[in-house]
């Protein structure tokens, strides 16, 4: 099955019906898939902390949310993760394009990649790294875990997982 559809299917199967996104080239397929589905409401955000606010509100309104973003967003959202999502104890699956990892063509992306796991670890955010396409088998368990413990959880998906990036 197409990986984009599989990810969206697992989100929907876990009751995730409110998804906000800030785009990344690697995530284009999954964002398009989510945008077209009737069982998931898609609302694009202009910045990732704004998106986390939307998700917090949607969850308090009875919907299961998720955010799809690039790992550079960890640099944008640390305060929001600490003082909103974690402080009020809210669940938030974060499907993250892990730019700057193996098969990355853009050198600047590596500069945030080297900080990504350290920052997530500093925040005590459970973190999973999808490198091979078969790693997606864990996605269902990760979503169940997220909504069990009411924490933000990071799923880092690198270029190898998405089948390479451009000509690399």
């Amino acid at each position, binding site marked *: 099955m197409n990986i984009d559809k599989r990810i969206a299917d697992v989100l929907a199967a876990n009751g995730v019906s409110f998804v906000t996104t800030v785009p990344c080239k690697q995530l284009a397929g999954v964002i398009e898939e989510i945008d077209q589905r009737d069982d998931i409401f898609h609302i694009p*955000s202009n910045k990732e*902390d704004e998106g986390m606010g939307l*998700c*917090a*509100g949607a969850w308090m309104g*009875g919907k299961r949310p998720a955010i799809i973003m690039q790992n550079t967003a960890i640099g944008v959202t640390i305060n929001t993760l600490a003082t*909103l999502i974690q*402080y*009020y*104890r809210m669940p938030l699956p974060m499907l993250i394009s892990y730019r700057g990892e193996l098969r990355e063509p853009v050198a600047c992306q590596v500069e945030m990649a080297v900080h990504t796991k350290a920052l997530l670890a500093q925040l005590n955010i459970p973190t999973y790294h999808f490198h091979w396409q078969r790693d997606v088998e864990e996605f269902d368990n990760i979503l169940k875990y997220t909504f069990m413990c009411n924490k933000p959880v990071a799923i880092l998906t690198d270029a190898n997982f998405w089948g390479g990036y451009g000509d690399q």
Partner: protein
Amino acid sequence: MIRSEILKEIAPILRNELVVCNIGIPSQELHAIDDQPSNFYMLGTMGLASSIGLGLALAQPKPVIVIDGDGSILTNLGTLPTIGNNAPGNYILMIIDNGSYGSTGDQPTYTSQRTDLAGMARAAGCARVVEVQDKDTGAALEEALASGEATVLVVKCDSGNAKMPVITMDPVVIRDRFMKAVAG
């Protein structure tokens, strides 16, 4: 009028609605004037009240009133296009525009100079944008509720804060009782 005087005046309207209230002194004032389980107080994360309220309004049908400030809107300006393109009819964003960062010592914001938040909201795609003076807030808020249309209400008022205690309620308690009010 200053913000706390406006909040006192509109408390009977807010009491019956879901309210998402901005960080800092606005939440302290609302909490001291009329604490309700249907109030969600932000204790951190400046700028996201409008986004939290929008997510809440999209997720369920009850009216949602966001009490925000000019400084907080300016720090999350991306919120205005998202509101302009997505806000449902049960969403009211009330921006108390006193032209200053009240919680940090009343330093002036750019709305005290040349920046026009109502104009920015219109340019961002918000269809119903109303600007009023402080004394007209209650009537404008009731009109917004009755309109059933997404509304951005810019309330021009004086700069200043009432001396109110810090909110010591646990955030998970604030969130839990708010969610029960949403579902109730």
